Every structure is written in C-alpha cells, then in structure tokens.
C-alpha cells in the first residue's frame, strides 16, 4: 500500500463525526483490499506508481483561484477548493424546489436519512471510491423536489493547488418527474491528487442532463467517478470529456432500477505527450425494457495512452434490453497506445446488443470527397480527425457548453502531431 494512503488512513481513524458509519465500513473494506498491481484487472493498464510516489501535504491554493469563466453559462456555482466546500457559494438564491445542503450543517434527521443514501449507488468495488469514503470531510447534497424542472444548470468545480490533495463528494437526488442539469468540472495541472465522486439518484420519470469535464493535465492526478441509478422511465444524457494527465481515471456506473429507463453516454478524450486517460464504464441492466447508448471516442497522439473498459451486464430478467456500445480510437503516432476492452455479459435471451471497439482509420472515401473539392490532403485529414470528435460535441444538448469546449478541443487537437 502506498505510504500516502497509510498516512491518510491514520488521519481518518482519528476523525469522528456523522459520516463515521460510512467511513468505518469503507475502512474495513479498504483494509481487506490489496493494493492494485499490474495483475489487478481493473488496473491492468494504468499504473498507480504516480500515486505511490506522491508526496502530498495540505498544500496551498490561492484564494484568487477561481473557476474558468464560461461565457453565457448562467449556472449555480458550487466550488471546492482543495476539497473544502466554498460556503460563499451557498449564498446564492436557489430556485424553488431545489435544495443544496452542506450535510455537516444539516439537521440530524437529514444526516440520518443521508447515511442511507450516500455510498449506496457507488459500487463498493471501486478502490478509490472507498478511499474517498474514508477521506472525505463532508458531503454536498443536492435535491430537486417532485415534478420540479430546474432550468438553471448547476456547475460543480473542483480546484486544487500544488502538492495538495482533494477529496470531494456530492450526492444528487432527482425526485419523481423532476429535471436538472449538472456539469462537473475538474481542472488544474499542478502536482496534486484529487478524488471526486458524485452519486446521482434519478427517480421515476426524472431527467438528468449531465456533463463531466475531466480536464486535469500534467502532474494533476485525478481519480473519480460518477454513478447513476435510474428509476422507471428515468432519462440520463451524459457527456464526459477527458484530457489526460500523469494519471486520470474516471469510473462511471449506470444502474437500472426501474423499467423503460434510457441512458445515453457520450465520452471523448484527446491525449498527447505522455498523458494517460482511463475510462471504466459499467452498465447494469438489472430490469427489463431499458435502453443504453454508449459512444466513446478518442484521439491519442505521441506517447499517450488511453484505456477503455466498457462493461454491459444484462441480467437474466432484463428482457427487451437494447444496448449499444461503441469505442473508436484514432492513433496519431506509432508510440501512442490504446487498450480497449468491451465486455458484454448477457444472461437474458430477448435483447438487442451491439458492441465494437476499433482503432479507426481515416475514411478514405470522405478524404477523396474533400480533396475533390480542392481541399489539400493535410487539411482534409485535420478536418476529418477533428470531425471525429466534433461529432460528439455537436451532440451535446447544452449549446453554451458545446461552444465553450469546442475551441479548447480545437486548440488541443491543433497541437497534436500526426506521425504515422
């Protein structure tokens, strides 16, 4: 086990508060879990050496450090600084039907109720989910009342300073027939470690539009997850954007708890230099008649490495399931690496499933079409490569976020060299 984790556990042991029951349970589970090696399936391609080496303290984060401005994005802002919730953010007037609570300052009744909800959606198998359970200082609870549609999006930003560690936790509950948009933002490039987990309970007929921008780069280690539980006829539309760093890993879990629910997950990553991005996406079709559409794309340049594991598990009773999983990757250099593994486990007999993972080649027919209009081959290649990702940006339901991220993707892409 890493020295960092041993120290952290020692620290956690001495903390006692309302979260103690969760902390103690996860601590027990953590002690029974062996530290991953290359032989551990979930970490086969992603080395934890950088975590083992990390020398972290309670680092500094300038008060002036603020989330990046997103022009035209009129969001309610929740900000974490080195894992501590910026309570200034709580001063905002909230729309009717929306509550945001810093649970340590909540009523005993709500604390007690939350103990039965927090950590129930996130599966126990996630090592760093357990780490987060043990180290997190508090939980933010967001709740939308029944049948309320909140039009103003909620933006959650996690800021982290040099040599810092940050552990954040949010629990979001969309009651029956409500709707909400949540955008999670992780940024920073300083040597640091961040674990950020968000659990979403989407009750019957509720609708969540979700974004996670995992944009840490360089030395910023980030390991986190988003976990969704969908009730009957619930709807999830999620977009995940990843830049790579020394270690950037996201685990997503979609669990169907009621019939006729739908989830669409689009994810894309652009990796350069020696960056690594690892996405483990798991879908549990435990009930019949649900639909999953997963579209994951990546562009990997230089010595960068992408890891994708997409598991769809269709339980015996989950008849009439429709599930599609597609992972396509464009390698721009011979030294770039992609490890992709779609896993389809089907125990029901009346389902429609498709999965595929490819290292995409540029479409020669499209290339010829562009060239036949006078566009140079090099320019046509750039247009097609960018278009490969841009197609998913086009599908983002929120136009403001799409127009905010598009130029960043374009810039990042423009810096990538094609060497194969």
């Amino acid at each position, binding site marked *: 086990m890493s020295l960092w984790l041993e120290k952290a556990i020692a620290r956690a042991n001495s903390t006692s508060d309302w979260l103690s029951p969760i902390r103690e349970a996860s601590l027990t589970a953590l002690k029974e879990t062996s530290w991953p090696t290359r032989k551990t399936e979930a970490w086969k391609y992603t080395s934890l050496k950088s975590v083992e080496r990390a020398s972290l303290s309670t680092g500094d984060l300038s008060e002036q450090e603020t989330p990046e401005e997103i022009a035209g994005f009129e969001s309610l802002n929740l900000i974490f600084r080195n894992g501590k919730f910026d309570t200034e953010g709580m001063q905002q007037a909230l729309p009717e039907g929306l509550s945001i609570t810093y649970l340590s300052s909540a009523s005993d009744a709500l604390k007690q109720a939350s103990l039965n909800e927090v950590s129930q959606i996130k599966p126990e198998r996630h090592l760093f989910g357990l780490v987060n359970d043990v180290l997190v200082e508090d939980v933010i609870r967001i709740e939308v009342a029944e049948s309320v549609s909140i039009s103003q999006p909620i933006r959650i930003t996690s800021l982290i300073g040099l040599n810092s560690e940050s552990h954040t936790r949010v629990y979001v509950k969309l009651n029956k027939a409500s709707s909400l948009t949540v955008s999670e933002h992780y940024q920073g490039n300083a040597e640091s470690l961040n674990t950020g987990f968000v659990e979403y309970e989407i009750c019957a007929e509720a609708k969540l539009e979700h974004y996670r921008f995992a944009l840490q780069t360089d030395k910023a280690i980030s390991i986190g997850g988003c976990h969704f539980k969908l009730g009957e006829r619930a709807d999830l539309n999620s977009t995940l954007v990843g830049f790579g760093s020394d270690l950037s890993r996201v685990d997503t879990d979609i669990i169907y708890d009621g019939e006729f629910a739908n989830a669409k997950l689009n994810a894309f990553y652009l990796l350069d230099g020696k960056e690594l991005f690892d996405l483990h996406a798991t879908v549990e079709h435990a009930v019949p008649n649900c639909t999953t559409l997963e579209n994951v794309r990546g562009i990997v340049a230089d010595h960068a490495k992408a890891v994708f594991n997409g598991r769809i598990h269709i339980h015996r009773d989950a008849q009439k399931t429709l599930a599609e999983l597609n992972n396509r990757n464009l390698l721009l250099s011979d030294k770039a690496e992609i490890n992709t593994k779609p896993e389809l486990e089907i125990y029901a007999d009346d389902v429609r499933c498709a999965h595929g993972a490819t290292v995409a080649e540029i*479409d*020669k*027919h*499209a290339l*010829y*079409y*562009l*060239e*036949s*209009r*006078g*566009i*140079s*081959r090099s*320019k*046509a290649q750039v*247009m*097609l490569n*960018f*278009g*490969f*990702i*841009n*197609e*998913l940006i*086009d599908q983002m339901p929120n136009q403001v976020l799409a127009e905010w991220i598009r130029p960043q993707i374009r810039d990042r892409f423009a810096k990538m060299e094609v060497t194969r």
Partner: protein
Amino acid sequence: MSNTTSSTENSMLKITDLHASVEEKNILKGLNLDVKPGEVHAIMGPNGAGKSTTGYVLSGREGYTVEQGSALLDGVEILDLEAEDRARAGLFLAFQYPVEIPGVSNLEFLKSSVDAQREARGEEAYTSAEFLKVAKEACKQVNLPLAFLKRGVNEGFSGGEKKRNELMQMILLKPKLCILDETDSGLDIDAMQVVANGVNSQRSPDRSFIIVTHYQRLLDYIKPDFVHVLSDGKIVKSGDASLAKELEAEGYSWIHNEPADELEGDLL
C-alpha cells in the same frame, strides 16, 4: 461538328486514348472525348461500361490507375495531378453518392473548398462573415434551408438534398468543367427539375458539362449538345440529343451490333 477538329487549343477537355484500370481490371479501353467551352456532353451507356469510372479517373480518385492516355483540362494535363490540384484547376465532379461526414460542418467544408479555389486563383480567402453571406445566397439558389449549412456535410440529408448540396458546391466553386455522375439517380421528377434548373442556370460560354447518366429523362431537362454511348470502356457511338431518344426507345443492345471502330474514328 466541333468534335471532328483535332486542335486542342480551344478544348475545355480533351481526352485522348485513355486506358484505366481498377484493381487490375481494365475498365477504360481507349476513351476519346473532346469538349469545347460552353458545351454540354452526355455520356450514356449500360451498367459497367465505365461511366462512373470516367468521372473518378478524371477527378483523381485513389485506386483508379491510368494505364495510358492523356486528359487536358483547358490545355493542362491533369492525369499527373493530385485530386486537390485537379479541383483547383477547375474540375468538378458531382458525386452519384455524396459522402456523409458527421462532425465536419457543411459551412466549414464549403468555405475550405472555396478558399482553396481562391488560393489557386491568387485571391484572398473570405472572412467568415463574408463567406456566410455568399453561402446563404447559394443555399437559397438551390432551395436548401439555411440550417443545412450548420449540419454535418450531407449528414442525414435526403437523396434530393444531397444532390442540391452538390449543386450548391458547383455554384460556389465556379468550375470550368462539371462532371455530373448519375445526378438523376434516386430523384423524383420534381427534385430532378430543381437540380436541372440549377445546372441550366450555371451554363455559360466558358463552362462545360459532362452529364453521365443511364437514363434519357434527365436530358429532357438539361439539353445536351452531344450524346455519346460508352460501352466496354470506349465511346461506340456519338450524336446529337436525338441519339438519347433513340437509345431510350431501342435500349443499349442495338449499339453492340454496329461497327464501333468506324464510329469512334469519327471522333478523332
């Protein structure tokens, strides 16, 4: 008839003894064609005669190998050029099956195409605002809603919309020679009329057209100056617009019964 002249001086396109193959299969076996500025030539023929291949070979599609022969576009040998440079030299192929390219917006595609042409002519690229105006105008001309500029190239367009998008590119690129590859395929009469009107509006004394088609009906709307029958990689018969009518009535089979060499000699 102008095709009888052997001068290349005032030809828009002069193809001489063109042999070409695809995957080592000979498709074109000595094609000759002379198109003067402002003329409209129709190339008809049975399936597999090499009609589409002619368009692909001229536009420089990968995998289409020229074995011998030449093709001069306005006096410039184009068979040695890359596809992009042929387009810059003024050649335009309207595709039978325009390619869908999600993620690349139609507007960006059109602007990049037009910028390439302008660069070739030594003109400045349009600014985005200037081009948007030009593109909107072209959109109106072909009766496509402006929303089609924002969508991915041909993404989810109907058959007719794709052909109108090809036409819009033709209008914007102002080519010297347009090759329309089975532009009528998959179109109903109304859609065909829209496309034909668009093509007719682009006819001018310094622009030539080659209309590749299997059926005569498109030629009711776009009147050709010459009609050629392509069979087994060669032109086996040439005539005026009335030849298309004859073919429609008789089918292609009667062509094969005539001595082809003599007819072809007529073209040289």
